Protein backbone atom coordinates (compact mmCIF):
# COMPACT_ATOMS: atom_id res chain seq x y z
CA UNK A 1 0.00 0.00 0.00
CA UNK A 2 1.01 3.61 -0.57
CA UNK A 3 1.67 5.56 2.57
CA UNK A 4 2.51 9.19 3.02
CA UNK A 5 5.06 9.64 5.74
CA UNK A 6 3.81 12.19 8.26
CA UNK A 7 4.67 13.01 11.87
CA UNK A 8 1.42 11.35 12.98
CA UNK A 9 2.56 8.15 11.30
CA UNK A 10 6.00 8.18 12.92
CA UNK A 11 4.68 8.92 16.42
CA UNK A 12 1.75 6.54 15.91
CA UNK A 13 4.15 3.74 15.00
CA UNK A 14 6.22 4.39 18.12
CA UNK A 15 3.14 4.00 20.29
CA UNK A 16 1.80 1.01 18.36
CA UNK A 17 5.00 -0.98 18.46
CA UNK A 18 5.86 -0.24 22.08
CA UNK A 19 2.33 -1.13 23.10
CA UNK A 20 2.70 -4.45 21.30
CA UNK A 21 5.95 -5.23 23.10
CA UNK A 22 4.40 -4.39 26.47
CA UNK A 23 1.42 -6.58 25.57
CA UNK A 24 3.84 -9.50 25.32
CA UNK A 25 4.44 -9.14 29.07
CA UNK A 26 0.86 -9.88 30.00
CA UNK A 27 0.81 -13.12 31.94
CA UNK A 28 4.55 -12.99 32.65
CA UNK A 29 5.00 -9.98 34.92
CA UNK A 30 7.12 -10.37 38.07
CA UNK A 31 4.13 -9.77 40.35
CA UNK A 32 0.39 -9.47 39.81
CA UNK A 33 0.30 -5.76 40.58
CA UNK A 34 2.80 -5.25 37.79
CA UNK A 35 0.61 -7.17 35.31
CA UNK A 36 -1.96 -4.47 35.84
CA UNK A 37 0.57 -1.64 35.63
CA UNK A 38 2.22 -2.83 32.40
CA UNK A 39 -1.15 -3.46 30.78
CA UNK A 40 -2.25 0.06 31.69
CA UNK A 41 0.76 1.52 29.95
CA UNK A 42 0.24 -0.72 26.92
CA UNK A 43 -3.38 0.37 26.71
CA UNK A 44 -2.50 4.07 26.97
CA UNK A 45 0.00 3.66 24.14
CA UNK A 46 -2.42 1.69 22.00
CA UNK A 47 -4.98 4.45 22.49
CA UNK A 48 -2.45 7.04 21.36
CA UNK A 49 -1.49 4.90 18.38
CA UNK A 50 -5.10 4.59 17.27
CA UNK A 51 -5.65 8.35 17.32
CA UNK A 52 -2.37 9.07 15.54
CA UNK A 53 -2.77 6.39 12.88
CA UNK A 54 -6.31 7.55 12.25
CA UNK A 55 -4.91 10.99 11.51
CA UNK A 56 -2.50 9.32 9.06
CA UNK A 57 -5.08 7.03 7.42
CA UNK A 58 -7.03 3.88 8.33
CA UNK A 59 -5.66 2.53 11.60
CA UNK A 60 -6.04 -1.15 10.75
CA UNK A 61 -4.75 -0.89 7.20
CA UNK A 62 -1.72 0.95 8.52
CA UNK A 63 -1.08 -1.47 11.35
CA UNK A 64 -1.74 -4.70 9.52
CA UNK A 65 -1.03 -4.21 5.85
CA UNK A 66 2.22 -2.27 5.71
CA UNK A 67 5.53 -3.91 4.94
CA UNK A 68 8.36 -3.67 7.41
CA UNK A 69 10.10 -0.87 5.51
CA UNK A 70 6.98 1.27 5.67
CA UNK A 71 6.99 1.47 9.47
CA UNK A 72 8.54 4.66 10.80
CA UNK A 73 8.95 3.83 14.47
CA UNK A 74 12.17 4.26 16.41
CA UNK A 75 14.32 1.17 16.59
CA UNK A 76 14.31 1.52 20.37
CA UNK A 77 10.63 0.64 20.74
CA UNK A 78 10.85 -2.52 18.63
CA UNK A 79 13.61 -4.03 20.76
CA UNK A 80 12.52 -7.28 22.42
CA UNK A 81 11.50 -7.15 26.08
CA UNK A 82 14.47 -9.00 27.54
CA UNK A 83 14.20 -9.24 31.32
CA UNK A 84 12.19 -6.81 33.42
CA UNK A 85 15.18 -4.47 33.82
CA UNK A 86 15.66 -4.37 30.06
CA UNK A 87 12.01 -3.41 29.59
CA UNK A 88 12.27 -0.73 32.28
CA UNK A 89 15.38 0.72 30.61
CA UNK A 90 13.50 0.91 27.30
CA UNK A 91 10.55 2.55 29.04
CA UNK A 92 12.77 5.03 30.81
CA UNK A 93 14.59 6.16 27.69
CA UNK A 94 11.45 6.36 25.62
CA UNK A 95 8.98 7.83 28.10
CA UNK A 96 11.37 10.54 29.22
CA UNK A 97 11.77 11.60 25.60
CA UNK A 98 8.09 11.19 24.74
CA UNK A 99 7.05 13.36 27.67
CA UNK A 100 9.38 16.18 26.60
CA UNK A 101 8.24 15.91 23.00
CA UNK A 102 4.53 15.83 23.82
CA UNK A 103 4.85 18.73 26.26
CA UNK A 104 6.29 20.71 23.40
CA UNK A 105 3.66 19.58 20.90
CA UNK A 106 0.84 20.23 23.36
CA UNK A 107 1.93 23.84 23.64
CA UNK A 108 2.08 24.29 19.87
CA UNK A 109 -0.63 24.75 17.30
CA UNK A 110 -0.19 21.69 15.09
CA UNK A 111 -2.88 19.11 14.44
CA UNK A 112 -1.13 16.90 16.98
CA UNK A 113 -1.59 19.41 19.82
CA UNK A 114 -4.90 18.04 21.17
CA UNK A 115 -3.64 14.45 21.20
CA UNK A 116 -0.36 15.52 22.78
CA UNK A 117 -2.15 17.49 25.49
CA UNK A 118 -4.14 14.43 26.50
CA UNK A 119 -1.32 11.95 26.07
CA UNK A 120 1.26 13.92 27.99
CA UNK A 121 -0.53 13.13 31.25
CA UNK A 122 -0.45 9.42 30.46
CA UNK A 123 3.18 9.62 29.47
CA UNK A 124 4.14 11.45 32.65
CA UNK A 125 2.79 8.44 34.52
CA UNK A 126 4.73 6.02 32.30
CA UNK A 127 7.91 7.99 32.92
CA UNK A 128 7.24 7.97 36.65
CA UNK A 129 6.67 4.20 36.57
CA UNK A 130 9.98 3.68 34.78
CA UNK A 131 11.78 5.99 37.21
CA UNK A 132 10.38 4.28 40.28
CA UNK A 133 11.56 0.93 39.01
CA UNK A 134 14.93 2.23 37.88
CA UNK A 135 15.52 3.49 41.43
CA UNK A 136 14.46 0.22 43.00
CA UNK A 137 16.34 -2.05 40.64
CA UNK A 138 19.43 0.15 40.57
CA UNK A 139 19.62 0.42 44.33
CA UNK A 140 18.05 -2.93 45.20
CA UNK A 141 20.15 -6.08 45.21
CA UNK A 142 23.46 -6.79 43.54
CA UNK A 143 21.67 -8.85 40.91
CA UNK A 144 19.05 -6.21 40.14
CA UNK A 145 21.75 -3.55 39.90
CA UNK A 146 23.71 -5.64 37.44
CA UNK A 147 20.63 -6.39 35.33
CA UNK A 148 19.46 -2.76 35.31
CA UNK A 149 22.88 -1.50 34.31
CA UNK A 150 23.02 -4.11 31.59
CA UNK A 151 19.63 -3.06 30.20
CA UNK A 152 20.65 0.59 30.15
CA UNK A 153 23.96 -0.20 28.45
CA UNK A 154 22.46 -2.52 25.86
CA UNK A 155 19.82 -0.01 24.73
CA UNK A 156 21.99 3.09 24.88
CA UNK A 157 22.96 2.87 21.23
CA UNK A 158 19.31 3.29 20.24
CA UNK A 159 18.86 6.56 22.14
CA UNK A 160 20.50 8.83 19.58
CA UNK A 161 17.58 8.27 17.25
CA UNK A 162 15.14 9.68 19.82
CA UNK A 163 16.26 13.17 18.87
CA UNK A 164 16.73 12.82 15.14
CA UNK A 165 14.51 15.45 13.51
CA UNK A 166 11.19 14.18 12.19
CA UNK A 167 10.09 15.79 8.91
CA UNK A 168 7.17 18.09 9.48
CA UNK A 169 7.68 18.50 13.23
CA UNK A 170 8.92 21.87 14.39
CA UNK A 171 10.73 20.86 17.54
CA UNK A 172 13.95 22.16 19.16
CA UNK A 173 15.46 18.68 19.11
CA UNK A 174 18.83 19.50 20.52
CA UNK A 175 17.36 21.40 23.46
CA UNK A 176 15.10 18.41 24.21
CA UNK A 177 18.10 16.16 23.95
CA UNK A 178 19.98 18.25 26.51
CA UNK A 179 17.09 18.14 28.95
CA UNK A 180 16.74 14.40 28.42
CA UNK A 181 20.44 13.85 29.08
CA UNK A 182 20.28 15.88 32.28
CA UNK A 183 17.19 14.08 33.56
CA UNK A 184 18.46 10.61 32.76
CA UNK A 185 21.85 11.44 34.25
CA UNK A 186 20.50 12.68 37.55
CA UNK A 187 18.06 9.78 37.87
CA UNK A 188 20.73 7.18 37.17
CA UNK A 189 23.00 8.75 39.76
CA UNK A 190 20.21 8.59 42.35
CA UNK A 191 19.74 4.96 41.41
CA UNK A 192 23.49 4.32 41.96
CA UNK A 193 23.76 3.48 38.25
CA UNK A 194 26.22 4.74 35.66
CA UNK A 195 25.30 6.69 32.56
CA UNK A 196 26.42 4.48 29.66
CA UNK A 197 29.46 5.79 27.84
CA UNK A 198 29.16 4.22 24.41
CA UNK A 199 27.91 5.98 21.29
CA UNK A 200 24.22 6.83 21.14
CA UNK A 201 23.83 5.17 17.78
CA UNK A 202 25.19 2.12 16.00
CA UNK A 203 27.57 2.41 13.05
CA UNK A 204 24.83 3.04 10.50
CA UNK A 205 21.63 3.14 12.49
CA UNK A 206 21.13 6.77 13.56
CA UNK A 207 17.65 7.75 12.45
CA UNK A 208 17.23 4.49 10.59
CA UNK A 209 13.87 3.51 12.08
CA UNK A 210 12.41 6.82 11.01
CA UNK A 211 13.60 6.01 7.49
CA UNK A 212 12.04 2.55 7.54
CA UNK A 213 15.13 0.56 8.34
CA UNK A 214 14.58 -1.79 11.27
CA UNK A 215 16.35 -4.39 13.35
CA UNK A 216 16.14 -8.18 13.02
CA UNK A 217 13.53 -8.85 15.73
CA UNK A 218 11.07 -6.42 14.12
CA UNK A 219 10.22 -8.60 11.12
CA UNK A 220 9.36 -11.50 13.37
CA UNK A 221 7.22 -9.25 15.56
CA UNK A 222 5.29 -7.95 12.55
CA UNK A 223 4.79 -11.46 11.19
CA UNK A 224 3.04 -12.42 14.39
CA UNK A 225 1.08 -9.20 14.65
CA UNK A 226 -0.16 -9.19 11.06
CA UNK A 227 -0.60 -12.87 10.31
CA UNK A 228 -4.27 -13.33 11.21
CA UNK A 229 -5.43 -10.07 9.67
CA UNK A 230 -3.59 -10.78 6.43
CA UNK A 231 -4.90 -14.34 6.25
CA UNK A 232 -8.44 -13.06 5.72
CA UNK A 233 -8.22 -10.27 3.14
CA UNK A 234 -11.09 -7.85 3.33
CA UNK A 235 -12.69 -9.44 6.41
CA UNK A 236 -14.12 -7.33 9.22
CA UNK A 237 -13.34 -8.18 12.81
Amino acid at each position, binding site marked *: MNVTVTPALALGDDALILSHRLGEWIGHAP*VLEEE*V*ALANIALDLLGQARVLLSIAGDEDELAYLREERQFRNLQLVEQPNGDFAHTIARQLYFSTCQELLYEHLAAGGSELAPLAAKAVKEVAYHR*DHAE*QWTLRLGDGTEESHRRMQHGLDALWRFTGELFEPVDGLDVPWSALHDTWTTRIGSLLRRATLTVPEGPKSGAWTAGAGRQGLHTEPFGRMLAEMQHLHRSHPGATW
Partner: protein
Amino acid sequence: MTTAQPAETPSRPADWPLWEVFVRSRRGLSHTHAGSLHAPDAEMALRNARDLYTRRSEGVSIWVVPSAQVTASSPDEKDAFFEPSGDKPYRHPTFYEIPDGVQHL
Protein backbone atom coordinates in the same frame (compact mmCIF):
# COMPACT_ATOMS: atom_id res chain seq x y z
CA MET B 1 -7.95 -19.99 65.95
CA THR B 2 -10.63 -17.36 66.16
CA THR B 3 -9.45 -14.15 64.60
CA ALA B 4 -7.63 -13.41 61.39
CA GLN B 5 -4.92 -10.84 61.71
CA PRO B 6 -3.79 -8.86 58.69
CA ALA B 7 -0.63 -10.25 57.13
CA GLU B 8 2.36 -9.86 59.39
CA THR B 9 5.87 -8.79 58.58
CA PRO B 10 6.99 -10.54 55.39
CA SER B 11 8.08 -14.09 56.10
CA ARG B 12 10.51 -14.19 53.18
CA PRO B 13 12.65 -11.37 51.83
CA ALA B 14 10.68 -11.16 48.59
CA ASP B 15 7.25 -11.10 50.24
CA TRP B 16 5.98 -7.58 50.03
CA PRO B 17 3.81 -6.28 52.88
CA LEU B 18 0.08 -5.83 52.56
CA TRP B 19 -1.52 -2.38 52.25
CA GLU B 20 -5.12 -1.33 52.71
CA VAL B 21 -6.43 0.97 50.01
CA PHE B 22 -8.97 3.77 50.52
CA VAL B 23 -10.42 5.61 47.55
CA ARG B 24 -12.33 8.89 47.38
CA SER B 25 -14.65 8.25 44.49
CA ARG B 26 -15.45 11.90 43.91
CA ARG B 27 -15.05 15.28 45.50
CA GLY B 28 -17.36 15.75 48.45
CA LEU B 29 -17.26 12.10 49.54
CA SER B 30 -14.97 10.51 52.09
CA HIS B 31 -12.41 7.87 51.31
CA THR B 32 -13.84 4.38 51.56
CA HIS B 33 -12.06 1.08 51.88
CA ALA B 34 -11.59 -0.48 48.43
CA GLY B 35 -9.45 -3.53 49.19
CA SER B 36 -5.82 -4.37 49.68
CA LEU B 37 -2.69 -5.10 47.70
CA HIS B 38 0.98 -5.90 48.09
CA ALA B 39 3.76 -3.40 47.52
CA PRO B 40 7.35 -3.03 48.64
CA ASP B 41 6.87 0.52 49.91
CA ALA B 42 4.34 3.34 50.21
CA GLU B 43 5.12 4.99 46.88
CA MET B 44 4.65 1.78 44.95
CA ALA B 45 1.56 0.96 46.99
CA LEU B 46 -0.02 4.24 45.87
CA ARG B 47 0.81 3.57 42.25
CA ASN B 48 -0.40 -0.01 42.37
CA ALA B 49 -3.59 1.19 44.00
CA ARG B 50 -4.09 3.73 41.23
CA ASP B 51 -3.61 1.08 38.58
CA LEU B 52 -5.79 -1.51 40.28
CA TYR B 53 -8.59 0.34 42.01
CA THR B 54 -9.14 3.35 39.76
CA ARG B 55 -8.68 1.99 36.25
CA ARG B 56 -12.32 2.69 35.47
CA SER B 57 -12.12 6.25 36.81
CA GLU B 58 -13.39 5.17 40.21
CA GLY B 59 -11.36 7.70 42.16
CA VAL B 60 -9.95 11.18 42.58
CA SER B 61 -7.79 10.53 45.64
CA ILE B 62 -6.18 7.48 47.25
CA TRP B 63 -4.85 6.60 50.70
CA VAL B 64 -2.72 3.56 51.38
CA VAL B 65 -2.07 2.29 54.90
CA PRO B 66 0.12 -0.64 55.92
CA SER B 67 -2.36 -3.33 56.98
CA ALA B 68 -0.26 -4.10 60.01
CA GLN B 69 -0.79 -0.52 61.22
CA VAL B 70 -4.55 -0.83 61.43
CA THR B 71 -5.83 -1.23 64.96
CA ALA B 72 -9.32 -2.66 64.89
CA SER B 73 -11.95 -3.06 67.56
CA SER B 74 -12.37 -6.68 68.47
CA PRO B 75 -15.65 -8.42 67.74
CA ASP B 76 -15.41 -9.89 71.27
CA GLU B 77 -15.77 -6.39 72.66
CA LYS B 78 -18.63 -5.59 70.35
CA ASP B 79 -21.18 -5.34 73.12
CA ALA B 80 -19.01 -3.14 75.30
CA PHE B 81 -18.13 -0.90 72.40
CA PHE B 82 -21.36 -0.47 70.57
CA GLU B 83 -24.34 -1.47 72.65
CA PRO B 84 -24.18 1.35 75.21
CA SER B 85 -25.06 3.84 72.49
CA GLY B 86 -28.23 1.91 71.73
CA ASP B 87 -30.27 3.25 74.66
CA LYS B 88 -29.69 6.93 74.09
CA PRO B 89 -32.46 7.74 71.69
CA TYR B 90 -32.40 11.39 72.82
CA ARG B 91 -29.39 11.83 70.54
CA HIS B 92 -31.70 11.45 67.56
CA PRO B 93 -34.08 14.16 66.33
CA THR B 94 -36.97 11.71 66.02
CA PHE B 95 -36.98 11.44 69.84
CA TYR B 96 -38.71 14.79 70.18
CA GLU B 97 -42.34 15.59 69.58
CA ILE B 98 -43.12 18.85 67.87
CA PRO B 99 -46.65 20.18 67.37
CA ASP B 100 -48.06 19.80 63.87
CA GLY B 101 -47.50 22.78 61.67
CA VAL B 102 -44.26 23.97 63.28
CA GLN B 103 -41.72 24.28 60.50
CA HIS B 104 -37.95 24.59 60.06
CA LEU B 105 -37.19 22.43 63.10
